[in-house]
């Protein structure tokens, strides 16, 4: 007999009351099922690794991203040249020798679509890494020291957050000129505030924990406490934040190139290609839609990874 109630409820397995570490367990000084919990935790920890591999969301995302990384790195080895022009074969529809057709200058769309991954996969990850690096430092410092330091830093963060990313990057790029380095630094800098916020709140949650007090009673330096005690325990939110940012970074980079603040032709960059080829949407949709699909697939993939990580970590 199955009396699974059709009621609203939170069907999270943690609903099993035995989990001393579940929500229930926390404010509950009820006698903890000692070994049960420990065993459970051991199971969980192993689970974390295998779970990622088992999570379809995560794996799908991972596979797609890896595909594009591979293409970005090696596609030119087996596709036609993404930049070589064939003036006599412009805007050809998909065919045997041009699977994705050709663009307005007779360039092979397949080759360009594959190679297009490169720029965005340079920009987005590097920008994200920068953002994570800066954001973690800022977040750690302001979250750990609190007080006036925190006040000042967070005020600045608020300011940066008050300027929409696209707008600010346009402002910067238009005046400081284009080029990958600048784009990367710009996006990285503009993504720092949100990251630092996440890190900060994680740190605040962590710094009140007793092992941090214990460290202070050991006479550890603040730097040590931040780097060795706290940081390892907030890596999960940082990783998740990182993947989120990565998604945004890809999007932002593409948008900037589309608006003409990104890379210059003849780069096969997706955003740029879409911007230049959209003129031919009616007569040669393939020149636009393939890069567009590619871009979409990458961002979706990154978001799937975020999703997967989030789910697994939240377990």
């Amino acid at each position: 007999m199955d009396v699974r109630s059709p009621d609203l409820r939170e069907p999270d397995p943690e609903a099993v009351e035995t989990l001393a570490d579940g929500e229930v367990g926390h404010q509950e000084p009820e006698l903890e099922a000692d070994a049960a919990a420990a065993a459970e935790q051991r199971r969980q920890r192993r689970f974390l690794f295998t779970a990622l591999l088992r999570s379809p969301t995560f794996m799908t995302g991972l596979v797609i991203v890896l595909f594009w990384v591979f293409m970005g790195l090696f596609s030119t080895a087996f596709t036609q040249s993404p930049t070589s022009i064939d003036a006599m074969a412009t805007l050809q529809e998909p065919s045997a020798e041009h699977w994705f057709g050709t663009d307005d200058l007779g360039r092979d769309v397949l080759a360009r679509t594959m190679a297009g991954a490169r720029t965005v996969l340079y920009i987005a990850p590097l920008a994200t890494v920068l953002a994570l690096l800066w954001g973690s430092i800022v977040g750690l410092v302001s979250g750990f020291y609190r007080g006036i330091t925190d006040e000042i830093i967070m005020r600045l963060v608020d300011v940066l957050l008050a300027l929409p990313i696209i707008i600010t990057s346009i402002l910067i790029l238009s005046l400081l000129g284009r080029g990958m380095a600048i784009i990367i630094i710009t996006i990285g800098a503009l993504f720092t505030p949100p990251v630092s916020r996440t890190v900060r709140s994680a740190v605040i949650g962590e710094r009140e924990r007793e092992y941090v007090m214990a460290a202070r009673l050991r006479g550890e330096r603040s730097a040590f406490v931040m780097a060795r005690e706290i940081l390892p325990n907030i890596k999960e939110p940082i990783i998740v934040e990182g993947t989120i940012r990565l998604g945004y970074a890809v999007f932002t980079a593409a948008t900037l190139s589309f608006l003409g603040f990104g890379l210059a032709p003849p780069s096969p960059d997706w955003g740029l290609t879409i911007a230049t080829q959209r003129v031919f949407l009616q007569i040669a949709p393939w020149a636009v839609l393939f890069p567009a699909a590619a871009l979409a697939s990458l961002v979706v993939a990154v978001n799937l990874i975020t999703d997967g990580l989030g789910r697994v970590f939240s377990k």
Partner: protein
Amino acid sequence: MTTDQYRREYAEHLIEQCKKGHMTRRQLLVRASVFGLSATVAGQMLAACGGSEEETTGGGDSGMPDPVMGGTIKLIGPAPITDPDPVTIYDQGGIVLVYQFLEYLIDLDNSNGLKPKLAESWTPDETGSVWTFNLRQGVTFNDGSPFEAEDVITSIERVLDPANGSGALSQLSGVLSPGGARAVDQYTVEFTLDKPYADFPYMVSSGNYNTAILSRNYTGDIVKNPVGTGPFMLTDYVTKQKATFVKNPSYWGKDAEGRQLPYLDGMEYVMVEDNSAQNLQLQSGAVDVQPQTVFQGAQALFGDPNLRVDIYPGTGIREVAFNMNVEPWKDNKALRQAVAYCLDREAINQALYDGRSNLGYDTFWEPTVFPGSPASTPRAQDYDKAKQLLSDAGYPDGLDITLTHAKYLENPQYAQLIQDQCKPAGINVKLDQLSYEAYYAGDDADYYGTTPWLNAPMTITEWGSRPAPGIFAAAMLLPDAVWSSSHWNNPEWVSLFDQYQSTADEASRTDIAAQLSSIQQDDTPILLAFYITQLRTQKKNVYGIQGPGSFYCDLSQAFMTA
């Protein structure tokens, strides 16, 4: 001898040339028009040459129905970079707008012939250095004031004043100096030139679009007081968005049947930078006419059942200029030639215009485009030669150059083609793509000294149709031409060009042209890979749009059927 004698002689000379085959029938008509010979005279002359009346007068309006009165036509095109002030305009947007409410002494027909507009007739003296224009009478500006010689004088003087930084100056300098224009009477203007100049009428025609006739009491700020004699009146102007015109009720123009022009009640010019956006609006039926259609991206328009694309034998170009004020182009003919030999002009034509345009070989005297020009030596792609020239130039193992261009029309594609075709020779072209505005931007204080299109090392600049090679040459090759992106200064060529302008005799004129052409080609200050065949797109039910394709868009006889 009298002017009439002179004219008669000139007519006979033309007929002779034509018979000898030195001159096509079409060119004969053109030359005749330049010399102010009326259409009837010209007709007799053709007859004298023998042969029938097969005449191509461009314009695709076949089977035109009877005009329909009223209605408003919507044009779409790029916003003018500056206000539509005739003195300073230099871009498509500005020219189209000016043309609607201002007029010129002389207008161009579809085959670059001249046809009377505000001037009913014009005649040179025997030396060709004094030109007398008889103005049309009974024309009034749309502010009610009458159109008289005084207005012409002030308008011409205005462009002659360097302070006004008018592009026309580069055409007129050395031809007409301030004070050169004199009012003989209320309706007669006499231009005393610095030297004999056979093509002078072009200088005061719409072919030199800064010479539009403004009211004598024009004080500047065209948008606030758009006083002109044109068929339409500018009623509303929103920067970068749209300009609205209504018909000029007191317009002097009548059509063949004597009906009052224009037929339309008004017109609107919608400003949209982006070509694809323009095309979409055309297709969605939001607008009626696209005066200049860029082939790239417009392919869909050809198939659109509601649209008609008119094809004109245009003379528009994309000037690829080597700035000879700076390295590496400075005094390095070989290098410039090297680049020229890298180009596969066929391919470029194919890629950019589906092979429709006429090929160019880096000279303005191109017989296929300007009839009667001396034959030019074709320049096919030749990498060996290019490499050779490169090492002669001192760059045996190639070099890096930067090509600055606007993200406008097909320039980006052209730039990438050049880049692609130069690579094999070892010339690495770095593309510096600017926005349209940025490319033409510059400091008000010293525009010509700061704007990228005149100062970047290597540039692509789009030029609309010009009626004659000399006009192009004067605009961009003379040392003192404000629009010279190449800053070329070849004394020999300059003096030859001076002769060329003053020579009236066709034979010697052609000889000089041949020399000019070969010098230009050899020195290669600029690359001219093609002369663009112009496209204009309109709804199927729009008729009667006149004017050589590129910039001019004469709506005075345009109308829409239901």
